[in-house]
């Protein structure tokens, strides 16, 4: 397998993990919205209410930065990162 194929395989793996986490916070938890809202969550808000107000939103922000860092590492590993002068 060429260097580039390996790079793409790893990038695709990272995409799958990212989309899986995205799925949990955007869809997964809202499948059980009614049940989860009975429980008191962070800062004393009901769980589902808190996720729709802050939790999922914040998770997305963190997820994107995490993804960007991981992808940069993958690019560096295979020598595909951009040079500064480009």
């Amino acid at each position, binding site marked *: 397998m060429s260097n580039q194929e390996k790079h793409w395989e790893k*990038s695709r793996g990272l995409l799958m993990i990212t989309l899986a986490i995205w799925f949990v916070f*955007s*869809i997964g938890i809202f*499948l059980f*919205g009614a049940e989860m809202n009975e429980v008191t969550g962070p800062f004393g808000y009901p769980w589902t209410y808190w996720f*729709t107000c802050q939790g999922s*939103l914040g998770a997305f922000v963190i997820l994107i930065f995490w*993804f960007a860092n991981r*992808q940069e590492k993958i690019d560096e590993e295979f020598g595909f990162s951009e040079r500064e002068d480009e």
Partner: protein
Amino acid sequence: MKSTNFIDNLPKVYGIYTGGFIGFIILMAIAEQMGMSAKAIGIAFVAFTVFIYALIGWLSRTAQADAYYVAGRQVPTVFNGMATAADWMSGASFVAMAGGIYFKGYGYMALLVGWTGGYVLVASLLAPYLRKFGCYTVPDFIGTRYGGNLARFSAVVVLTVASFTYVTAQINATGTIASVALDIPFQYAVYIGLISILLCSMLGGMRGVTWTQVAQYIVLIIAYLLPVFWISNKIGAGFFPHFMLADEVARIGELEAQFGFVKNSAADLATVPKGLAGITKAHSAVNATPWAFISLALAMMMGTASLPHVMMRYFTTPSVKAARKSVGWSLFFIFLLYSSAPMLATLSKLSLLDPNLSTGIIGKSIAEVQAIDWYQNWNAANLMFVSDFNGNGTVELNEFFMGGKAVVLATPEIAGLPYVISGLVAAGGMAAAMSTADGLILAIANAISHDVYYKIIDPKAETAKRLVVARVLLVVIGFAGATIAAMEIQGILGSVIWAFDFAMSGLFFPLVLGVWWKRANRQGAIAGMLGGLAAGTWYLVWVRTGGSGFLGITQLTFGIFGSAVSLVAMVVVSLMTQEPDKATQKMVDEVRVPSGKTILGKQ
């Protein structure tokens, strides 16, 4: 305004700008104490901020294609994040969102999740790859990746349908705010709004829009957060509302149980002015089925990743790496406002409901409420209404009605904040609507000038001529949008949601598969774009004209049907026709790695 020196000085420039704006707010507050009228303050806020944007637009004028289309590709990550946030948060986000949450609760908050979660798709599936491509517009990517004028033209069609639907709503919003703040009829205010919008984008194109959007973000975020923090502290709910409103949310639940949700008769409701609503749904309870919530969130997420005015912001970053990080910053700046909207809705509702607060009106006598200053003002503006349906002389929960916009616009007044805050909120709403309208008009005008005029009609056109065409189109599209906005056909929020559905129907899969599926070819992409758009539009028309719909897909989520048709059409047609040639496959390989020259830069 194009030297690297300017880029290095950005934090200083915008730091001074922010300080100056805060100074202006303080100046207005002092003027209010000295007897400046509310109307004069409103005019001063809107006029001052619009003047600043116009000045930035003028300073950013350019005669270079690279600067006009992609701001010279040198916008730093964090500033591009702010510009994207302003580009993204429209009049609907600013003015209507907290109101929607106030009235509809959980079911409506699917929009919060959808309008943020979409950025994960933008960051992971599209933005870095389109940046590597080096295109000027989204149809530029489609046209080059799939080849052929028909593919390019189809993308322009989808882009125009989606963005135009969106832009009429934004011009409508600027008109509404300008008409209230400047006290002139809506039909004229719409054109004042339009001229303000064009001042930012006409001379400098994407460069002008970028630097005005950063300035607009600063105004809109101050205007949104200041009242939330102020009210929260004023009523003793906590100095940092986001972490401290759990008791208030619970208290609203108690009050709802105490007052009860009484259903009004149709005859009573007929006396309520059009567009106003009462509180009929619980504040924090789960009041929608999982599918209703998820389908709306999903449609908004896929729409986010297909809207060209957002995607083209990531063409302006210096590198692929910066494009990825910039998506994160965009969402962070959006998060600051979106996570505050439910807090504002909570504070607004509690201020009105709680009899223990001096501002509470439920349980007071009708005559007493009708004598309140702010009630009279907003009642005159047709945004508030009380009526003694049961004849007991006091205001009940089901007897108080408010317009969706009033939650953001009137809450500062209801909570007893000085008028200077209301002026600030008007300026913030104007900034939100203007920045989005600018991004949208530019996206349409650029697609037509670059993809239709330059790439299809006259590939030999000189830069100067291309930019004249781009600017003429900008004005024409702006006026067309304003003319339709002046007719007031649809509400602001409904048409915004439709724009997302149109975009995802036609563009989501052709864009994503263009990067992630090498086998996707021209025929498949054209089938996907036109088939998806046609199917989505058909479904919308069908449901609007009394069709029952299926699978719980409503007129707000028709994009789910459209994009499903798009996916199937694209895959089936691609597999039935020849695979793309070697050169195209090699191009896809190159898009997938950040290093090296951009694809279009090589040609």
